[in-house]
């Protein structure tokens, strides 16, 4: 049987006051069992001699020394913490997008991706916003929620939205521009199918609530007299 791994023991010498332990040196010698270790080892404390250090491999002198001393930047081992999702944003919340092509659009929140961005969909049929990533900072969360239980969003992650890497083309002068343009405008069929699949269940739940469909189709704007700091969203 392999010896049991014991969790390391805390201090066996409780503090009376900071800096003064309860037990004297001789008592602690006994408590730690150093007498038993010595007895096991024939009256001497076991010692392990240093292993003979291997001679370091011979380093050839470098061929090139740079003229000026270049400062090396300090090492930075900081790791970014995962983005905290605002408490007001839960799956199914209606969000108002504040910047970009779809500013003012009211949109349904699906889930937060590992990069911290929010996965969001119009739905596309209602307001033209496709499955898209949006930053939390450019979004107002309203208190309106849509039931999102029958929508499966597991397959979407940040890789799904990465730019397609084009194979490097040989530079043919005349046909260069036309061919490029054609490829850019195509959205792959399976992305369109994904959109339809996600939206199908969503649209049914949206149509069940009166006026919600036209609400999502309309853009948000500040009118005269609206004070954003006093508005309840």
């Amino acid at each position: 049987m392999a010896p049991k791994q014991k969790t390391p023991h805390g201090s066996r010498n409780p503090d009376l006051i900071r800096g003064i332990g309860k037990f004297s040196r001789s008592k602690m010698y006994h408590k730690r069992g150093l007498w038993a270790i010595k007895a096991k080892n024939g009256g001497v404390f076991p010692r392990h001699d240093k292993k003979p250090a291997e001679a370091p491999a011979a380093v050839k002198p470098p061929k090139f020394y740079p003229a000026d001393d270049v400062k090396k930047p300090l090492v930075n081992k900081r790791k970014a913490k995962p983005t905290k999702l605002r408490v007001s944003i839960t799956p199914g919340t209606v969000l108002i997008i504040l910047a970009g092509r779809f500013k003012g659009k009211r949109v349904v929140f699906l889930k937060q991706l590992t990069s911290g961005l929010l996965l969001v969909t119009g739905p596309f049929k209602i307001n033209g916003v496709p499955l898209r990533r949006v930053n939390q900072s450019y979004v107002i969360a309203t208190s309106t929620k849509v039931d999102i239980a029958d929508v499966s969003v597991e397959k979407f992650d940040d890789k799904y939205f990465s730019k397609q890497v084009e194979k490097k083309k040989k530079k043919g002068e005349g046909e260069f521009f036309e061919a490029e343009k054609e490829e850019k405008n195509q959205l792959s069929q399976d992305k369109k199918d994904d959109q339809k699949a996600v939206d199908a269940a969503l649209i049914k739940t949206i149509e069940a609530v009166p006026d919600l469909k036209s609400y999502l189709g309309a853009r948000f704007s500040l009118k005269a007299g609206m004070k954003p700091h006093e508005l309840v969203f």
Partner: protein
Amino acid sequence: MPFKRYVEIGRIALVNYGKDYGKLVVIVDVIDQNRALVDSPDMVRGQMNFKRLTLTDLKIDIKRVPNKKTLVAALEAADIKNKWDNSSWGRKLIVQKKRASLNDFDRFKIMLAKIKKAGVVRQELAKLKKETTA
């Protein structure tokens, strides 16, 4: 123009400044020229400057500094809460509170309702216009 609302024991006032903003309180005693002792079913009896109070038309019948039980009973008997909520001032306050608490979706629904109502009114108006010109 003579004054109609007097500071007197039993006068109901609205607090317009401070921690108890918006509450209805009863003037229970007058301390001096500037301050009154004020009480309400949901607050500890305390002094308030008159400048923090706006007098209302309502008044209840109490003796100077009643205990809480008597005060609550008098308020119930005079039915101040309902009288206030049905008065035009009280109704306005309720509407203000409702408007401030509206959701973005609620504001959208109200906009649709306003447009619909305006449409109906305009139709009726057009009908009436036709009748008068015809």
